[in-house]
């Protein structure tokens, strides 16, 4: 267990840029854009101008605060906190995707594999520590950054409004930052399981490729899909290939948080209640009731086993 902790810590050291700085910088840029929006709005002298500025959530904020119902005000503020995490999570998706793609390849390329292999570390612990770093640690950091950004944003707006004599401080107490954090943290294990097929596939490609693992990861599924499509075109009707592209999506994109929401995501736009309902833990976890979720997870574990085996026997040449 102690070894595992240090293995994960090592991943963090190596990928501090992606795991920590990418979310921090995204949050920072987001806040900066909002601040610029506020200043622009103030300079133009009328309140609505805030909403027109790109990247400015003032409109959302205004909307939330104008709700007559106190609970709805709270919900609206929560949605704002989610919205910052969502932006950071898109960045996280890219970070994790490329992290897995390089995780078992980069140290073979620069031969530092030989150093790691000179230590009494098992290959399964090494590979699993990378899985944990990518799908547990990285999202945890992203969630914390996301919520902090959200709180920062709310404070920024509250301060702006208080300059205009609108007292909103008491309204802010209707937001539920801890619930938002808890909700998101509880969703992380779901994310880790959901992402397994993608995790396994990317790590397998990473352990397999002698050069450019991304070629294997992307081109192979696309090429197979095109072959299937071609067979169908010839009228062979081997099988429909809709399911195939679904599977491809799962294998390549499930490291993007929230991708389990799938088509339901369109309902998120209809109001803060619907959006929150969709993100509620119980609801999110209903995806676990679908067979596809578990088939994917099992396939992901099989791919991981393959990655561990390759890690054991592939050397630096």
């Amino acid at each position: 267990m102690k070894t595992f902790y240090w293995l994960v810590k090592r991943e963090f050291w190596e990928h501090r840029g992606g795991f920590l700085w990418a979310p921090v910088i995204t949050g920072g840029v987001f806040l900066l854009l909002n601040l610029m929006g506020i200043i622009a709005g103030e300079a133009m002298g009328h309140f609505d101008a805030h909403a027109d500025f790109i990247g400015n959530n003032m409109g959302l904020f205004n909307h939330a605060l104008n709700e007559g119902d106190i609970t709805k005000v709270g919900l609206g503020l929560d949605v704002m906190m989610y919205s910052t995490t969502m932006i950071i999570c898109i960045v996280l998706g890219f970070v994790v995707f490329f992290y897995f793609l390089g995780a078992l390849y980069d140290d073979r390329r620069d031969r530092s594999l030989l150093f790691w292999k000179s230590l009494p570390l098992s290959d399964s612990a090494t590979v699993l520590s990378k899985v944990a770093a990518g799908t547990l640690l990285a999202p945890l950091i992203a969630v914390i950054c996301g919520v902090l950004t959200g709180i920062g944003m709310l404070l920024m707006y509250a301060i702006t409004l208080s300059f205009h004599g609108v007292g909103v401080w008491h309204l802010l107490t209707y937001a539920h930052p801890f619930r938002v954090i808890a909700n998101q943290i509880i969703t992380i294990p779901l994310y880790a399981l959901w992402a397994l097929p993608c995790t396994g596939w990317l790590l397998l490609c990473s352990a397999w490729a002698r050069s450019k693992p991304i070629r294997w990861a992307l081109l192979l599924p696309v090429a197979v899909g095109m072959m299937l499509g071609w067979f169908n075109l010839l009228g062979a009707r081997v099988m429909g290939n809709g399911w195939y592209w679904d599977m491809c999506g799962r294998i390549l994109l499930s490291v993007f948080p929230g991708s389990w929401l799938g088509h339901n995501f369109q309902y998120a736009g209809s109001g803060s209640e619907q959006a929150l309902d969709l993100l509620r833990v119980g609801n999110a976890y209903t995806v676990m009731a679908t067979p596809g979720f578990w088939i994917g997870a099992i396939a992901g574990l099989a791919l991981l086993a393959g990655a561990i085996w390759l890690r054991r026997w592939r050397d630096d040449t």
Partner: protein
Amino acid sequence: MSTVIAATGLTKRYKNATALDGASFRIESGRIVGLIGPNGAGKTTALKAILGLTDFQGELSVLGLDPRKQRGKLMEQVCFIADVAVLPRWIRVREAVDFVANTHPRFDRRKCEAFLARTRLTPGLRVKQMSKGMIVQLHLALVMAIDARLLVLDEPTLGLDILYRKQFYQNLLEDYFDEDKTIIVTTHQVEEVEHILTDLMFIRDGKIVLDADMDSVGERFAEVMVGADKAAAARALRPLDERQVFGKSIFLFDGADRAVLEGLGEVRRPSVSDLFVATMKGTYA
């Protein structure tokens, strides 16, 4: 004295080449063995087999363990340095020490820090900011603090200047090696390790062509400097090798009668590199 490595019929074939061709050898504990061979002779493959980094045919036992199946356990007692450039470039001195200290059960942190204190390495320094010589100092500090029974060095001083090379072997001998430890080293800079080796192994085309301790190498092989008048007589004794220096011929003999050789000229112990060149004649032809 116990056997550290026992290999029988070690064979490894790649797609279009044979790296090891039925190599058999034994290494006892408390020895410093030089595994010397030309490029592509199978040195690195042999070491990889010992370290459980590659699959192979034949039997191999390292410290009583099978490196293919019990690698995790084996690596608690085996260390290796595979040339200087294998430390991850992003790691800092502090992180490297912390990591090894917390994952290796036989690592002595104080020893490592004492060794680092004698270098110019600072805790915050990253490997990518270091010179090759500094990287090897860090690697050596990590390895020497591990109480391992077998240390494998694959071209450990490649690309280092002479100061670092000398210091490297001096540190190994003075601060690390004792009768419970065994060191296997491969290198092309034979002259530098010659005086520290206790055993010599030559490998050629995947086979062990010479396996002897240094004392018996001295007894078995002899180099004689012969004047032109006696050259024909020397050739009749079927030398391994002949070369010309300042109008005289130097002959290298394997197992020839000392008394006869004394009669031909001045008898010397051949250097390992001369012995190597003579043994490997025609390798690249």
